């Protein structure tokens, strides 16, 4: 019997591809945003309203992951930007190799300023899978309750920015803005929080400003967000 000192990163296969993607996008100066939330928090709706406001302002593309169906891609197609559905056929998260497989499509779109990746609806599984993105952005809707940042702290801690969606519903709910802000700031004190309603448009300007800031920063060669600060690796 032999004892081996292995110290191998369990996610090394994914992380290697993600590093390659990140390098690729650094060269192209494309900002990549990985959108993560529970199913139904409003990722696709946010994208619809975001794309509508970015028409003729930025060059954008979208990769959208779902367990089944290409409904979301069809919802996002009318804005004139390239959209590609990634059907994971059961997997609860996107992995870097799935994104890499669609790189050609993204490249065919020409020089891109911004690539959105809508992850599969899930607050746990996508958290550990680096897709080479500049920023993970987490969405929480007002109908999900204020305690979600405490129940699923890893994604709220790791996200570069957070959105509280469906704020138009607040008058109908017992949802405390104070409490959700406090919970979020406990697990991630400095994180920017955008409180938005896609339905009324309230708050979307600040979100768009933040996106423009990311694009401008990457163009000038540095990333405001500091990239993925969740660095994994072998200790030895």
């Amino acid at each position: 019997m032999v004892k081996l000192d292995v110290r191998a990163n369990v996610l090394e296969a994914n992380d290697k591809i993600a590093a390659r993607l990140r390098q690729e996008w650094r060269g192209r100066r494309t900002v990549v945003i990985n959108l993560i939330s529970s199913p139904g928090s409003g990722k696709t709706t946010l994208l619809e309203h975001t794309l509508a406001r970015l028409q003729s302002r930025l060059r954008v593309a979208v990769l959208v992951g779902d367990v089944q169906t290409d409904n979301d891609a069809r919802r996002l197609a009318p804005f004139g930007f390239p959209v590609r559905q990634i059907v994971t056929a059961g997997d609860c998260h996107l992995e870097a190799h799935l994104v890499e497989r669609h790189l050609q499509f993204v490249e065919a779109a020409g020089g891109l300023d911004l690539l959105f990746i809508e992850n599969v609806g899930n607050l746990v599984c996508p958290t550990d899978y680096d897709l080479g993105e500049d920023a993970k952005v987490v969405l929480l809707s007002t109908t999900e309750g204020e305690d979600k940042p405490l129940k699923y702290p890893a994604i709220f801690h790791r996200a570069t920015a957070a959105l509280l969606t469906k704020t138009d519903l607040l008058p109908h709910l017992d949802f405390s803005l104070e409490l959700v802000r406090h919970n979020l700031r406990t697990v991630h004190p400095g994180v920017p929080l955008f409180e938005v309603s896609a339905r009324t448009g309230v708050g979307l300007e600040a979100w768009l400003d933040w996106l423009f800031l990311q694009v401008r920063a990457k163009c000038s060669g540095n990333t405001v967000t500091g990239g993925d600060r969740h660095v994994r690796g072998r200790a030895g």
Partner: protein
Amino acid sequence: MHELALAEEIVRVADKEAAHVGATRVLSVGVTVGQLMQVEVDCLLFLLGIVGDTSRYTAGAAFEATVEPARLHCPECGATWDMDDWVFLCGRCGSTEVRALSGERLEVTTMEVELDGDGQRTGATDRW
């Protein structure tokens, strides 16, 4: 289901290592799981038992997990402490710039294997 994907990755890494050193069988696998990785350790071990049996190397192997605690550090006042309940505010000075020094590891740390003609080839084996 996050744990299932991770169990599959762990077995894949163990298989690769076993093949690399020319092992015939894996007896045990020691995994380190960072506290910040939000992994249900009991669930992971349960699934490793099932997924492990699908590989000719790790079938019957004992899987063990060690949780790597999250040590937090405040660069403003220099305090260092063990994370409690994901509170990333500095309890001493109130700073919001708290960083994790550890707790994000997810690795196959050690393995015990049987080599072909075990007993002749001994000693620690370096990784590829």
